[in-house]
């Protein structure tokens, strides 16, 4: 039975609409994963040298023991945030004559299939073979490896358990995350205690009493069992699903958008889309965090004005880029309805411009405190703001007409690649290059202000001729609408 499940799982992966569609994305993803993996392997192979750099005064083995517990704490924090819950896939089997225990063991078993379980082996095994083995012998190495495996499995199932619990009650996740962060801060910021010392003490003691290795193993088994029992008792469709509706939802209106007519109504809808759905909401939150970029950027004197253009563009326009790159996929689920109802596409595009202008204006206002670093920064931000609502918005919308990938709004944002494709990669080129093509020739001959003048000129020109661009985008869309619609209907 388990092998059938795994077989279905593999089919689900390969036959999913998202797999194998965008080769460009797959290549980039593969390269990223390869790079990450190579980095981890490298760190693992030369862990002894790196430990010496961080703890030059201590004995290498001692600092290794010290790092272990720290690693597992960080690991837990990351897992709770990023690891997938293997739950929803069980639904089609619940009503079939398959033993409950089989389904539950399968779910628990699949819970192990996570890259997080690979890291500790890759990171720590080379060190154990290289240093611990020759110095302390086989028994010590074996004990250490077993306890690391034990803690990994324990962490794995603890994270899954926390995630399952926080599906029922969202506060649990926040509580656990806050606790772990406080625990780490207590060591590194407040120096109340030392996790490294505690870790050193535990693992050192473990090696003197090899039988104690049963503790991590028992912990792992116990956590697995807890998961198993919890799942078996809660194997109901509605409980496996994420958040159920809790509080009553109310209608809201944005009266100030009313003056823009139908386009304003569309913008109001899109604001609701962003606020009421997980993934666009996290795109918005990420954009808010990006406003802090200036704190890193402007305090670093290495960067010249050329880079400040970059910073200004990103801070005032990150929403245009971050949210806009997936347009109109956000509305894929009801795109049929949009086209069949009395919405002129002209208004539809106008509403996007309104949204971008609102978001960029908010970002411009929020970044005014950077005036602390000089008036010219405020001026640069203003220039790049105009650039964003003029040129970048138009570029983004031009590429939106070339994007036909559906996005499921209910899925969460982290590590979600649905909807990503070649369009996003292509889009980044004109976004990043155009301001430089205009600015650098002048900057190179020492005429930076003329370069900036050209950028402002082009930006204002595009804003003033917006009606023309909207018309162009509309004609372009009407030609491509069938392809876009078909793509959006593909679940």
């Amino acid at each position, binding site marked *: 039975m388990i092998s059938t499940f795994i077989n279905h799982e593999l089919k689900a992966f390969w036959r999913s609409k998202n797999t194998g569609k965008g080769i460009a994305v797959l290549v980039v993803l593969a390269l990223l994963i390869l790079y990450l993996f190579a980095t981890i392997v490298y760190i693992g192979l030369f862990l002894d040298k790196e430990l010496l750099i961080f703890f030059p005064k201590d004995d290498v083995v001692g600092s290794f023991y010290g790092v272990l517990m720290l690693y597992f704490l960080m690991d837990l924090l990351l897992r709770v945030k990023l690891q997938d819950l293997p739950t929803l896939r069980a639904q089609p089997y619940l009503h079939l004559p398959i033993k409950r225990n089989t389904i539950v063991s399968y779910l628990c078993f699949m819970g192990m299939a996570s890259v997080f379980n690979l890291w500790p082996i890759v990171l720590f095994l080379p060190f154990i073979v290289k240093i611990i083995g020759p110095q302390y012998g086989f028994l010590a190495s074996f004990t250490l490896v077993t306890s690391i495996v034990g803690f990994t499995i324990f962490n794995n199932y603890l994270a899954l358990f926390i995630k399952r619990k926080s599906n029922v009650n969202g506060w649990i996740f926040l509580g656990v995350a806050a606790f772990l962060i406080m625990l780490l801060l207590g060591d590194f910021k407040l120096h109340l205690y030392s996790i490294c010392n505690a870790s050193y003490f535990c693992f050192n003691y473990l090696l003197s009493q090899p039988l104690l290795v049963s503790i991590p193993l028992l912990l792992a088994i116990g956590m697995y069992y807890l998961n198993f029992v919890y799942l078996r008792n809660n194997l109901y469709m509605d409980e496996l699903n994420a958040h159920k*509706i809790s*509080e*009553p*939802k*109310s*209608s*809201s209106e944005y009266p100030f958008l009313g003056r823009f007519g*139908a386009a304003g*109504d569309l913008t109001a*809808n899109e604001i*609701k*889309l962003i606020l*009421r*759905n997980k993934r666009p909401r996290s795109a918005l939150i990420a954009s808010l965090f990006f406003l802090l970029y200036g704190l890193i950027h402007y305090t670093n004197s290495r960067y010249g004005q050329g880079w400040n253009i970059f910073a200004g563009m990103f801070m005032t326009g990150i929403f245009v880029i971050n949210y806009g790159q997936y347009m109109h996929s956000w509305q894929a*689920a*009801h*795109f*049929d*309805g949009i*086209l*069949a*109802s*009395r*919405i*002129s*596409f002209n208004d539809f595009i106008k509403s996007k411009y309104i949204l971008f202008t609102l978001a960029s204006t908010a970002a411009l206002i929020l970044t005014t405190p950077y005036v602390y670093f000089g008036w010219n920064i405020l001026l640069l931000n203003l220039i790049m703001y105009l650039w964003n609502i003029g040129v970048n918005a138009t570029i983004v919308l031009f590429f939106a007409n070339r994007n036909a990938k559906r996005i499921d*709004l*209910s899925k969460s944002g982290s590590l979600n690649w649905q909807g990503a494709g070649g369009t996003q990669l292509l889009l980044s080129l004109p976004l990043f290059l155009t301001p430089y093509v205009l600015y650098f020739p002048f900057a190179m001959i020492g005429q930076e202000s003329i370069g900036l003048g050209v950028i402002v000129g082009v930006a204002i020109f595009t804003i003033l001729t917006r009606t023309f661009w909207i018309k162009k985008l509309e004609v372009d869309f*009407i030609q491509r609408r*069938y392809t876009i*619609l*078909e793509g959006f*209907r593909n679940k």
Partner: protein
Amino acid sequence: MIEINNLKKIYNGVTVVNVPHLKINKGESIGLLGNNGAGKTTLFRMILDLIRPDCGEIRSNAANVAGNENWKAYTASYLDEGFLIEYLTPEEYFYFIGGLHEQSTAQVDEVLSKLTTFFNGEIIKNGKYIRDLSKGNQCKVGVAACLLQNPTLLMLDEPFANIDPSTQFKLKKILKDESKHITTVISSHDLNHVTDVCNRILLMEKGVIIKDIITSSSTLHELEEYFGTGKHMQLSGELGVLH
């Protein structure tokens, strides 16, 4: 109202819709019947310019629907949940649709107040987004949004499929009232409902309209015969007689 000429849609070498000629007159109420895969929804989507026909054209009030937006002003349609904006509350959605037709919230409220029995207390002020409603209730929202638009052409794809029996009766009454002064096109798998509501029945099989009949007292029996005995292929011989 609608005139279809030489319309064809082909997917992977299979012709899913093939309508050489079809004319839907003003004021008719059309019932579109056919087993799964007969091409009903594809035909609907092509009439709404959501799918590109491989050849042929569809004229709505004498103007080609493709790339044209005029028909949207008088056509209201609900094919599936993809027509609803799932993250809005029903009220927000109704006001939005009403706004597209230059109606104030008060006007929308007035229309909605007439639909209270149809909604059966499950739609308005229920504290739910459309995505959290059941399929049947979503269907009610879709139908109500259509009525709100005061259309002269109303198109519904399987409106009876997910709603409860009492709502089915209410919907039938609404459709009968509406079809007195507007054109309606409805697809369904329920022979009783369709013969009850529609005055002209189109029967589709494998993309072809194989029967085009004016509803009479014998129609229901005729249709039951067709679907019940499974003599599908023999009927297609009648195609030539149709037009």
